[in-house]
């Protein structure tokens, strides 16, 4: 477990360093994630229990953004003022995003494949 944590934290540090050094408009941890993905794809050696540790961390993903979320207590006036605009922006953009992503990826893909596989005896 310790080895896996060291690997994850190393890639976190690597991502942060690269972002700091280059001024890339990307969060450090996202950059670290992309490095780790490249490493995994290359098939180089990694601690065997990395999958377990990563899954364990992600099982409690929700806990980790509680601290940032609690800062909402300082925004009472802002929520009163902009609350309706936020709700409207969320509802419209979410409905459109789900619809557009689905249509672009092909909404009848599986049905077509099924039909094709049925037509081949």
């Amino acid at each position, binding site marked *: 477990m310790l080895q896996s944590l060291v690997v994850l934290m190393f890639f976190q540090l690597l*991502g942060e360093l690269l972002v700091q050094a280059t001024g890339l408009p990307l969060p450090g941890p*996202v950059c670290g994630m992309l490095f780790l993905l490249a490493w995994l794809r290359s098939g180089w050696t990694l601690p065997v229990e990395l999958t377990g540790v990563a899954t364990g*961390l992600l099982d409690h993903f929700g806990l980790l*953004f509680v601290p*940032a979320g609690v800062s909402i*207590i300082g925004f009472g006036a802002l929520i009163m003022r902009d609350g309706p605009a936020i709700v409207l922006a969320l509802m419209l953009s*979410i409905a459109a995003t789900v619809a557009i992503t689905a249509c672009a990826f092909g909404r009848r893909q599986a049905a077509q494949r099924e039909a094709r596989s049925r037509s081949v005896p």
Partner: protein
Amino acid sequence: MIESAKLAGLLQGPLVWLPATLAIYAAATALWRRHGKAPILNPTMLSIIAIGTVLLASGVPYPAYLDGVAILNYVLGTAVVALAVPLHRHIHLLQGRTLKLAVALFAGSTTSLVLGLIVAKAAGASLETILSIAPKAATAAVSIEIARGIGGLPGLTAVVTIMTGITTAVVGPYVLDLLGVRAPETRGLALGVSGHGIATARAFSESEAAGSFASIGTALNASLTAALVPLAVWALGLM
């Protein structure tokens, strides 16, 4: 008896707030599980409400609380790095469909971002608010970092991001049914791109294939949103 000065000191460090946060989150998670993982009982949302209420009632300022739970903020970054592992595990599902995926991802990500910005601006939201909701479709860990980078309010972004996940989990399946979308891969991808981890959990409750594609959508959109938000904010003249 503990002197009040010592008590005040305790309320600054991790001794009180770290275990309190873990305990509240564990209790919220238990409640959520007992009610069939209903999106509306999202444990992160419940924990934020509970801890926020305790802080407001006890008069402990937010920075003192944040000091106590700073380690969780660090581990958040570690967990984002760990997203590479499920992404790697599911990436084979994309063979031969990368172009379609790239188009769908780009279309969805841009819609979420640009429409969110335009509607919020048209509805008269303040600039801080507009900048805070721009990265809402990225998973919270990432959206918070993006908000910090463009001058939004990370706390507001965290809450708006969680609301985005819950709304997608509740409304998304209705939109997909309305459009007659039945392919699990497509349903999963659309939910993941729009509503990150929370909607991914909803996709897994439909099928393993939908969940896997939602995970892919979540991870890829986190990266794409991080790249697109600063660009869109600049292009729309908001920064």
